[in-house]
């Protein structure tokens, strides 16, 4: 075995049944799915929309800022320390709050919403004279510092003499062996199998499933896409939006719902909770995604009404909710008006 200090390291994988099976499956079934350019059910390529600045800011505003929820103490097996109390001037407090804001942005960084990746099919060379050199394939990885795992070169010499770039699964496994990401297992946890995910979702542990999926997979991994879409759809069907609010997963979920044209449940939920700013942001996001334009109305109420009368799919339920909200709002304004008169 070559030492780690050399540029390329040499790993023999004698028994690789999981990966062999995976590679075969990949080349047969995934091509059918990828014949259409985007995720089944999306109106556009999510990568075009997700990274835009105004979309990011809208999603950020929709996510909300519940500081207690974001900064809840994480139990990571760490050594516990007693809390520290400090006396600060106002200027120092402001500085600390600014630092906290930076930390919050990091914690609420949204995992990218992407379509499933294309399989890697690049053959570097074919040397038939090497056929049968061994009964297993040899995998080589470049372990130099300074490159991200995404760009790291991993190549495979098959026993039939083909030198090819490693498939996504082979690459991820090798990178995890030499440059482990915390929270990621070498073998896919059984939790991500269909029956077990359903159990977790029924228990209501959406954030746990999504956090673990983020740690385990890359955002364009077919398994990640499957797990996250299933979770988002479950949350949408059961209207459990509050559990994901103020987490990093709320933004990608909202974008998923808008792209698959099922944002009406969320709008209904926001109107019922009287969160009109968020409802207006959602309608703005819809316009941004559908037509790349920001709507001309400045008034939020008008904006929402136009959406309900226009592109909405669940018109009856939304109209009912909107009417009841308008009545409550009118009563509130009247009450406020009377209060002002009384105080004057």
């Amino acid at each position, binding site marked *: 075995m070559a030492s780690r200090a050399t540029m390329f390291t040499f790993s023999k994988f004698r028994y690789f049944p999981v990966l062999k099976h995976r590679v075969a499956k990949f080349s047969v079934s995934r091509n059918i799915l990828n014949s259409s350019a985007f995720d089944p059910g999306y109106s556009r390529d999510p*990568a075009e929309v997700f*990274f835009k600045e105004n979309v990011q800011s809208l999603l950020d505003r929709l996510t909300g800022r519940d500081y207690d929820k974001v900064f809840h103490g*994480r*139990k*990571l*097996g*760490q*050594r*516990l320390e007693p809390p520290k109390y400090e006396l600060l001037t106002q200027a120092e407090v402001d500085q600390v709050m600014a630092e906290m804001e930076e930390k919050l942005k*990091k*914690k609420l*960084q949204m*995992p*990218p919403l*992407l379509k499933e990746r294309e399989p890697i099919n690049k053959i570097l060379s074919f040397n038939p004279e090497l056929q049968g050199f061994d009964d297993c394939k040899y995998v080589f990885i470049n372990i130099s510092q300074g490159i*991200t795992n*995404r*760009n790291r070169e991993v190549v495979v010499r098959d026993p039939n003499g083909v030198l090819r770039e490693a498939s996504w699964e082979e690459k991820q496994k090798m990178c995890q062996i030499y440059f482990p*990401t*915390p*929270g990621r*297992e070498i073998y896919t*946890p*059984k*939790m991500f199998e269909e029956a*077990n*995910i359903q*159990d*977790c979702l029924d228990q209501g*542990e959406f954030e*746990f*499933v999504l*956090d*673990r999926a*983020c*740690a385990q997979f890359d*955002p*364009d991994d077919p398994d990640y896409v499957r797990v996250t879409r299933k979770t988002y759809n479950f949350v949408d069907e059961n209207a459990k939006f509050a559990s994901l609010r103020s987490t990093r997963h709320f933004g990608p979920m909202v974008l998923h719902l808008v792209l698959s044209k099922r944002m009406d449940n969320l709008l209904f939920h926001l109107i019922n909770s009287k969160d009109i700013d968020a409802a207006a942001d959602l309608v703005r996001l819809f316009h941004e995604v559908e037509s790349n334009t920001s709507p001309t109305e400045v008034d939020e109420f008008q904006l929402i009404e136009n959406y309900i009368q226009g592109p909405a799919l669940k018109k009856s339920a939304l109209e009912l909710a909107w009417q009841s909200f308008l009545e409550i709002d009118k009563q509130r304004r009247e009450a406020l008006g009377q209060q002002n008169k009384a105080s004057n």
Partner: protein
Amino acid sequence: MTTKIVLSRCFSLLALRQSVFTASPKYVNNSPMLLTTEGTRSSFARSFAVTPNDETSPESNSEELIVDQKNASKMRSRIIPVETSMKYLKSKGYSSTYGEDPVWVRYRRNFKGQFAPKTRKTCIRQEKISTGNPCPICRDEYLILDYRNVELLKQFISPFNGAILPTEKTGLCQHKHRELVVAIIKAKDYGLIKFDVPSREYEYSDYQKS
């Protein structure tokens, strides 16, 4: 002198009881406590009572069932299914024994001095408890450490930092502690036990097409 008296007392007790002991073919040792029936191992708890008349008959062969009530509770040859253990944790018997506390809280270790040594390697040898003060899991045969028995496993996870409690705290023997660690890892793999995942940072430039 004292040992001789003790031994003779033992033999006299044996003579009084007039029971016939046979060694199990698997474990040939000096202790005459194990019994077999038709060559298969059976639990003392399920043994049938045998009257002295049967015992003293000359036709009694080595394959008869004989009960030894004093040591019945020490046998651990019966494999109890997980579902039974999960039902037991919800039962009245469990709550009256352990109350609301985890099972290890009311256990007290015996040692000289202030600082406890490492816990023993195992409480159970040759399918019976071979110690006077077995650990909290070994002493109760219905506490099965399995990845599905989440209620029991959670009692051994610290509520403060999510770590698995050390044997210094729980008092488990080393064998059971290893079983516990394996069960907890497996339960986390299946998603039966929730835990905090380390947060992951993304480089958006990796995923954006230029």
